[in-house]
């Protein structure tokens, strides 16, 4: 059977939430996710309806976050924006996790020449600063929110692959893997039944630490005009639109940016704590 049994999920969750920072992060995240899911029921105005208020009107009792250039309610747009930014962030990490994780596991397990070649490929991919890699992928695929997600996801593959390969290498030498081979388990079975369950903590930590970065990077591409396009209420795209009104209507950029910051901070607070709880090297440090 597998080596160290993974810690039961409930105990991990309790330990994660015992830290005040992580608890605050989880609460903020819960509010943002609830807001995004329940947006159609909660928002006072349609996110795309123009002229519900005066152009660039300041925040007021009826329009809490003020209004944008087209007289759209910014509060409604920020709430809806959570749908984009959070789901796009998750899709992005999924791309890095699935492809990077699989690649790292396979080359680490195969060893020898395959590992040497795979490591070389990872090195080459790491030769690109992530933002440049993402922009290059957008240049090929074209602008758009899902292309941006794919671009940031692809840029994250080498980071995931490198860490997972390292973790796989240390697992491959353990007795339970040798034992599995000895009783005649084939390679796919060893990967599925023995390697992946034991890589789970590493994968969870990587994912949680990268999610904040993924949300931020996709929003960055949208801000640069390479991701979500108007009129989509994506936070980065809203900030891009608000860029021109910093002087006259700062609320057009303050609230979408604050929502983005809170979301990334919340994910990072939870991810940080999760990595302390799950990563054995971090245990006992703080």
């Amino acid at each position, binding site marked *: 059977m597998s080596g160290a049994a993974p810690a039961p999920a409930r105990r991990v969750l309790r330990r994660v939430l015992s830290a005040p920072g992580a608890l605050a992060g989880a609460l903020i995240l819960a509010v943002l996710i609830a807001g995004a899911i329940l947006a159609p029921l909660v928002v006072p105005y349609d996110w795309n309806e123009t002229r519900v208020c005066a152009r660039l009107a300041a925040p007021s009792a009826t329009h809490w976050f003020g209004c944008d250039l087209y007289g759209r309610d910014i509060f409604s747009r920020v709430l809806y924006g959570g749908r984009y930014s959070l789901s796009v962030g998750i899709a992005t990490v999924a791309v890095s996790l699935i492809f990077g994780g699989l690649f790292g596991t396979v080359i680490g397990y195969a060893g020898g020449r395959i590992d040497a070649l795979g490591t*070389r490929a990872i090195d*080459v*991919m790491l*030769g*690109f600063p992530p933002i440049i890699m993402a922009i*290059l992928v957008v240049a090929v695929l074209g602008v758009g929110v899902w292309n941006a997600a794919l671009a940031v996801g692809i840029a994250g593959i080498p980071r995931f692959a490198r860490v997972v390969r390292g973790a796989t290498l240390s697992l491959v030498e353990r007795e339970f893997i040798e034992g599995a081979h000895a009783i005649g388990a084939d390679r796919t079975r060893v990967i599925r039944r023995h390697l992946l369950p034991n890589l789970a903590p590493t994968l969870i930590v990587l994912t949680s630490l990268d999610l904040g970065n993924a949300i931020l990077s996709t929003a960055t591409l949208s*801000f640069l005009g390479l991701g979500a396009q108007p009129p989509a209420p994506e936070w980065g795209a809203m900030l891009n639109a608000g*860029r021109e009104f*910093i002087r006259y209507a700062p609320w057009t950029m303050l609230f979408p940016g604050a929502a983005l910051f809170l979301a*990334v901070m919340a994910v990072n607070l939870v991810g940080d704590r999760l990595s302390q709880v799950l990563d054995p090297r971090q245990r006992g440090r703080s």
Partner: protein
Amino acid sequence: MRGTWLLRRLLGIIPTLLLTWSVVFAALQMVPGDPVSLMLGGTPASQEVIQAERHRLGLDQPVHLQYLNFLRHAVTGDFGASFTTRQPVLSMIGEQLPFTLSLAAGGLLVGAVLGTLLGVLAGLRPNGWTDAGVMTMALAGLSLPSFWIGMVLIHVFATLLGWVPVIGTGPVSLILPSITVGLFLAGGLARLIRASIIEVQGQDYIRTAHAKGLPPLLVVGKHIARNAVIPPLTLLGVQFALLIGGAVVTERVFARPGIGAMLVDAVLSKDYPLVQGIVVVTTGAYIVINLAIDLVYGLIDPRISRQ
């Protein structure tokens, strides 16, 4: 022995550079559409003109020859002319480079000073209130969208307080952009330096230094700081990637010229020679800088080059 290590590392970047640039070539081969029609930008042209242009750009050659030409051009820096401005790509990059470099230098300065200060403050007294406060700040720094904080800085310091001009050239106009880039760097650096200081503090030689009665300030300066600075230094290469990312975004926010702004515009206007040139130059610089950092690391810590 150190000589062969140095030579091996220096020669080792050649295949990395060639392979990285091959990825750029392969990626841009996948761009849908014909480069010549993109270059003509919808202007009607006769078949002869199109054929002549294809021949001039070498597009009528087989892919493997185009690839070899591309590598030769990448090495010599000849990336052809931009589709939009018709100027040589290399001279366009050369014109914009000083703006990006000064922004990167400013950001690095702010990031390094702030990050070191916060990291040392937290690392010397881990698990206390200062540590918790500093680490929350560091995490906030890492979570701040730099394009947002840039705009907030403009709002507060240029619009509300009027301390700095919104637009302009010269060193004053570099203050807010440098802070914008630096804040993001500072967060990561503070965490690394804190972890490193905690690790070094637990070592036997630090206990010995304290035990033999050295003044605490000397222990911190001579023994802790010197050993704690090495691990974060190796990550300066990664920080350089953050600097590039920060520059791309910050140039946009502050409407500054620079490589990053030019790259985004090139992608939006499908100016592929320019995209290719900028990506080749930045990846090349990134790989060379990472090598330089590795070499410095090896010189500071002889254990590395002996491996």
